[in-house]
């Protein structure tokens, strides 16, 4: 896999985020030693002072783009990365901080900071793919560490990673849960959300809140209508879709496109 016959080189980069996704790599305790043997961790500031220069075989990118510096840095990273993988809701959809995209960021900065001119922040929090081409993405807030290990192994082996793109409902059914939306009338984003977490919230009698973002070809419009049928006010429906993956287009378009008659 590596160009010069040595161990493949992996780098981990972070933009605006909570660190939770890259920590999933350290969380993979049992696999950590095997991964460490199979690859060279060339850049991982959270774990090491060593910062080796590119090119990298795999660049894992966590976080969203929120500053001018970020917007430049991601271009440099793209040039040095053979395979660029975005990990987590911030990198793939802008994350929870993308809620600011619907507000006046400049006004907040003035309200919060004594010398706002020091703060060079962009008006929006945007996913990596709005700035550079992305080869693979791992969803989730946070990502699933087994999916991360699968993705690294698959990339090293030169095959397509086996990551589900179907809806959360399949995982929920497999756990034998009674549908909380059908039977309990609880609004649940599961039908429009990509599987990956193992249906944690519905298993605890809570509606899914979409940590893994929109599934492939999700019918979010129809789900939003169903929330109205269940008695949610329009702004409640809007808030349900506008959370960790709210900036992802399939969720965003529900409220930004002209509603179908």
């Amino acid at each position: 896999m590596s160009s010069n016959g040595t161990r493949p080189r992996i780098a981990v980069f972070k933009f605006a985020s909570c660190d939770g996704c890259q920590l999933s790599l350290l969380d993979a305790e049992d696999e950590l030693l095997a991964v460490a043997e199979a690859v060279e961790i060339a850049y991982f500031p959270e774990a090491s002072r060593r910062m080796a220069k590119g090119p990298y075989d795999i660049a894992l990118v966590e976080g969203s783009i929120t500053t001018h510096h970020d917007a430049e840095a991601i271009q440099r990273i793209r040039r040095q990365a053979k395979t660029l993988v975005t990990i987590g809701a911030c990198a793939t959809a802008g994350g929870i901080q993308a809620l600011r995209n619907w507000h006046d960021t400049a006004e907040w900065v003035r309200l919060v900071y004594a010398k706002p001119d020091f703060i060079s922040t962009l008006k929006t929090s945007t996913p990596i793919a709005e700035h550079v081409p992305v080869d693979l993405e791992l969803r989730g807030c946070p990502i699933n560490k087994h999916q991360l290990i699968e993705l690294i192994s698959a990339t090293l082996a030169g095959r397509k990673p086996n990551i589900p793109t179907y809806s959360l409902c399949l995982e929920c059914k497999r756990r034998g849960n009674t549908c909380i939306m059908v039977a309990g009338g609880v609004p649940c984003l599961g039908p429009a959300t990509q599987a990956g977490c193992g249906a944690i919230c519905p298993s605890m009698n809570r509606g899914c809140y979409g940590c893994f973002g929109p599934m492939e070809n999700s019918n979010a419009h129809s789900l939003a209508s169903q929330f109205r049928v269940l008695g949610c006010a329009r702004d409640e429906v809007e808030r349900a879709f506008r959370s960790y993956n709210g900036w992802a287009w399939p969720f965003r378009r529900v409220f930004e496109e002209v509603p179908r008659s």
Partner: protein
Amino acid sequence: MGQTIRIHHVTRIEGHARIDIHLDEAGKVRSTQFHVTQVRGFEKFTEGRPYYEMPAITARICGICPVSHLLASAKACDAVMAVQIPEAARLLRELLHCAQFVQSHALSFFYLSAPDLLLGFDSDPAARNVLGLIEKHPEAARDGIALRRFGQQTIERLAGERVHPAWVVPGGVNKAMSVDTRDLILSDLPLAHSIIRRTLRLFKSMLDQFPAESEVFGNMPTLHAGLVDADGRLQIYDGMVRFIDSAGKTAGRITRPREYAKWIGEAAMPDSYLKAPYFKPLGYPEGIYRVGPLARLNVAESCGTSDADRELLEYRQRLGRVVNGSFFYHYARLIEALYAIERMEELLHLPEILDKHVRAEAGVNSLEGVGIIEAPRGVLIHHYRVNEQGAITGANLIVATGHNNLAINHSVQQVAERFVDGMKLQEGALNRVNAVVRAYDPCLSCSTHAFGKPAYRLRLVGAGGEVIEET
């Protein structure tokens, strides 16, 4: 011409930040500044969201200790609902929190700081990380991995997920603990207990190797703040915030969470995203105080569990009743991990913890709520204002790294004065500047919740303001 050393990306900490070291004409350190350079805006973009969404949203501030934000937020929501949560829920939340202390302290000690302590501050930076540790000290590395896994697995067993779990809710938790889960956690405790005992022995055997670090790693008189119960015992989930001075005398007490603003002021630093809280009665900047493991053990009279209290006694025999050197955060952190493991055992043996009543239901009964807990890094405060419909109209979050902001700045200066000589930039010196920051185990994801992006970087700035070197 003077110079500025700039450390970009302080490494092996959670999040990022930058340190500037300003030199005078002779190349001596004139001043230093610790900057946090990113903000994310949680306090503003949560306005209008219903209060009951806050635990899940604010957990996203930080992937290292999401449980802290979950709990502080849930407590603030309990206050908005004006409910007393069921006893089992209180015990389960504390149990979850103990598990988080173990995993977070294990991460800080083994993954982030042990490479310096066991491999040496001046060792090859290419191997000075957890992988280098696996090679040179496989037994310690295995212990670290196993201890963190124990904490994370317990969180997963209780709450369904390791990062951002959805189990803690306003009014309690949303699922009782099964007997099977209790027994599983109990069966793992002896291993965790023996690992932490072994690690404490290892750390104590190395203490003499770091005379310079003990002396200048933020060794200074400041106030200390932490949660204690009515008998002065260490608390991490509930209690009152006690402030003591550097000699151990009580300086103040926050007995009612809603009165925190009477005691804590927040100053805006000119060029950092991170605000600097200070102890109000003394003003800014004299009201500098520290939080976290070192401060908690200074503030508490005892831990309240037998093995941890034995270790605490020895710690005080070695270092004194009030320990003012920030190098000893590491030592205090290990004693706290031992306390958390012992406390988990106590909690799991309480019959009430299996009770099926785990959640109080209520609507808005108070338009303001404050929740205070001890995050692994120190006191964490969530303060919400809501309208009659329960929508957030204002939020203020004071995170542990914020409380420590002034102390970290002073510590960086102390270390830089001792180890950095502008004429020759030594790797070991730069690493020590990094390492003193790591001693506080700062969480910059948390501290930048307000808006933007952190990255620890180091910058050497000349007397004329020019940047001489950046890393």
